[in-house]
């Protein structure tokens, strides 16, 4: 009995410590966020980028990513801004600001939006993290209602069968969106202006065309320090350092 109390006491202490550390991290993130907002308001976009980037590193959030995108845009870095807004939209698709900023940036910089499949469009309806939770939650929910009544000898009922059907139904419905999240992870954006798109993955290769910063592409293959990307019109190799992926 004594050892049980001792264990509970130790666990409580560890939990308190973790809470304190988490709270401290949150406080630091919140501090960076407000300082970043102040720097942005003062026109110091370089400092704002640093602070919002630190904020994202400590505790990533849709708001910090959106503000990071705004700061990058003000510094004339459309590609980095687009990536930040894409991430913000992925974290919180219900916030209209990131979507608006993406449209604005693409209109001003004369850039095209990525060519999305219907699965990828569906994946954008909810935060990317939710789809995985929904898929595994509904799947295990269905499995539980399929297995547990037999194990625990509950009386069979229509409700249990309905629960299984509901779980499996949700699971099947969210599968395409999960696939969309997976394929969306292959999307990326050209970071450096006038990036050559090459025929072969070598520095001496003949360029097919040159891509503008912020131009979307889809990673098809990776080889060494080069990525084979598919743009809306053509396919070619770009250096990894010149291409940033959303995730």
């Amino acid at each position, binding site marked *: 009995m004594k050892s049980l109390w001792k264990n509970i006491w130790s666990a409580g202490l560890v939990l308190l410590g973790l809470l304190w550390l988490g709270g401290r991290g949150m406080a630091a*993130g*919140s501090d960076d*966020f407000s300082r970043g*907002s102040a720097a*942005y*308001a003062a026109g110091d976009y370089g400092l704002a980028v640093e602070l919002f980037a630190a*904020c994202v590193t400590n*505790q*990533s*959030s*849709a*708001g*910090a990513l*959106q*503000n990071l995108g*705004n700061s990058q*845009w003000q510094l004339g870095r459309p590609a980095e801004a687009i990536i930040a807004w894409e*991430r913000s939209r*992925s*974290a*919180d698709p219900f*916030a209209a*600001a990131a979507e*608006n*900023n993406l*449209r*604005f*940036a693409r*209109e001003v*910089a*004369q*850039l095209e939006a990525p060519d999305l499949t219907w699965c990828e469009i569906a994946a954008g309806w909810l*935060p*990317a*993290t939710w*789809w*995985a*939770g929904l*898929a*595994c939650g509904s799947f*295990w929910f269905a*499995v*539980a209602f399929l*297995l*547990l009544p*037999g*194990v625990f000898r509950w009386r069979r009922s229509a409700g249990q069968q309905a629960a299984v059907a509901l779980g499996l139904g949700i699971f099947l419905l969210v599968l395409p969106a*999960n696939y969309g*999240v*997976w394929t969306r*992870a292959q999307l990326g954006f050209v970071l450096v*202006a006038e990036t050559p798109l090459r025929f072969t993955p070598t520095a001496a290769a003949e360029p*097919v*065309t*040159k891509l*503008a*910063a912020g131009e979307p592409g889809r990673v098809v293959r990776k080889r060494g320090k080069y990525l084979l990307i598919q743009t809306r*019109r*053509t396919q070619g190799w770009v250096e990894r350092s010149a291409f940033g992926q959303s*995730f």
Partner: protein
Amino acid sequence: MSSARRSPANCVDSRWRALFFWVGLMVVLTVDRLQAQTPPQPDPLMQLMLTQPSIDVSTNVEVRVVFDPPVIGLGEKSTYRVTINAVSDSIKWPDDIYAPMELTVRPGARGQILQPALDKLKPATTINHHVTAAKAGVFTIPEFRVKVYGRNLTVPAAQLEVLPQADPRAPVGQRLYLELTETNAFCGQPIRVRVLMPSAAGNAIQALTQVQINGDGVLVDQTSVRQRIQALEFQGRSGPVFIYESVITPLVAGRLDLSAQAFTSGNQFAGAITIQGQATIMGGQPQYVLLDSDAVRLNVAPLPRAGLLPGFSGAIGRYEIDPPQLSTNRLRVGDAVKLVVTFRTAGEIKRINAPAPPAVTNWQVFPPEVEGGPLLMATAAGLFSAIKYSYTMIPLTNDMQATPAIPFSYFDPDAKAYRDLTIPAVAVRVAAGVATAEAQAIAQAAAAQTNDQRLKLSGLATGPGVLTTNLKPPQLRGSFWGWQLGPLFGFAALWFWDRRRRFYEQHPEILVRRRARRALRRERSVLTKTAQQGDAVGFARSAVMALRVAGAPHFPALPRALVGRDIIELLELPMREGRPGAAVRQLFAMMDDAQFNLTPGEFGAVLALQPELDRILDQLEERLR
């Protein structure tokens, strides 16, 4: 009865009735048939098609093969030309032609022409290949077979003579030359192209028909075609040259290989033509020979994103605008006024898109309209193409002092930069008046829509919003799949546990025996302990208990209900009658004595039974397995 009542008058009536019935039926049938025979109204499109001469596909298919020219010098090029009087789609031409290894054969143009012959059109398809030789000699491309209209057709062999040096007296093969005004251009930039055909021997020139610019990713403007025959020095020869001019617009960035092809058509000119200088035009029936040019490479770059100016509508080149003309500069609120703007360029004006009307709230500006068509203007600086656009504007308030400026910009390919050519504001005096309610409503709606549609960079988020531990979606992380093992193992364990439980429910004796074995092991350890301590009573009690525990699973009874005879029954026959049986009897008798006798006997000798007891217990334990 009825016949008895039938009068002659009735008989006549019924005959007339029958006659009328049959006559009526025949009339109806005849009219119906006549109606059915009425020819349907002719379909005008079908009529038009039927008036066209049919394409002759019934004549025997023939093939002609030539090298043009048949004699070349080393390093020169000849055209291997195959002409088949069949429709192009019906010819299954091989991808590669067998040729001597000294010859390099590259595919060239392919074209079909329909030649009028009596009431039919005779198709002729020509396929060109460009041939060069690696060394001098006489080379033969052997005969081979192709499928035409599903049947085999033999293409005869053809011979090419290659001389070590070009013979200046040898006839020169006719061919086309493609020239571009720009070989490095931008996407959307109009480029003027020229297809030239020098005159043949004797300065005789002929026309070209079905001129095509071959190549992916370009738009050929057929409306800006110009043809002329001009005497000039070309390819080291002086004489008349047939020149076909058009404008192409590259649509994709990259390297584009363009070539030209056309059929010669003798003196049959398609469209208007200008003849400058002296030219001898070939007479007689035209010989439709397919000519083609070498490929010309056009490097196309995308338009730069940087420096884009407002009002850019895709205009590439060099443009100028004349000062805008306003129909009047004294007007009242609600009056319409027309602003005419003239765009000028030395290049192509047809591809210009007028700038969209500006989004202003105090003027209602209608989309521009073309005034007339493209014009050719002569100025001191030279010839210009020009086009006029008019904007209709209605002032909605009387405090306006000028028309709104209309942003316009173009891309200058020479400077590789965007240039601002905003249509300037024109001073006006707007007197008080009343704009119609309709105009005001339209203007307000347009202004509201424009304001809604104009995108702006959003302000900063006031708070962090939705927090995420990791930007990478969980399903892309390896740990996510690791976490899925938790419920998997949990459910699997539950399932195995349930299976095991159900098995034991069906075979409870296994559990009984297992419990008995455990209990026996406990009793045997007590037995050993009591024997070591010399506790004879405790030893006897544990021994009996152990025997009962070990024997109980074989009887539907609790262990304490068993008596010595029950245990002895479980022993093998020799043991029952031997010392082990006696030991069991003795132990149970001792325990009965201890339990029921007020003066129990001596227990000391019981400890000596331990070896026998061990043998018995071993056997009983074995039976429990």
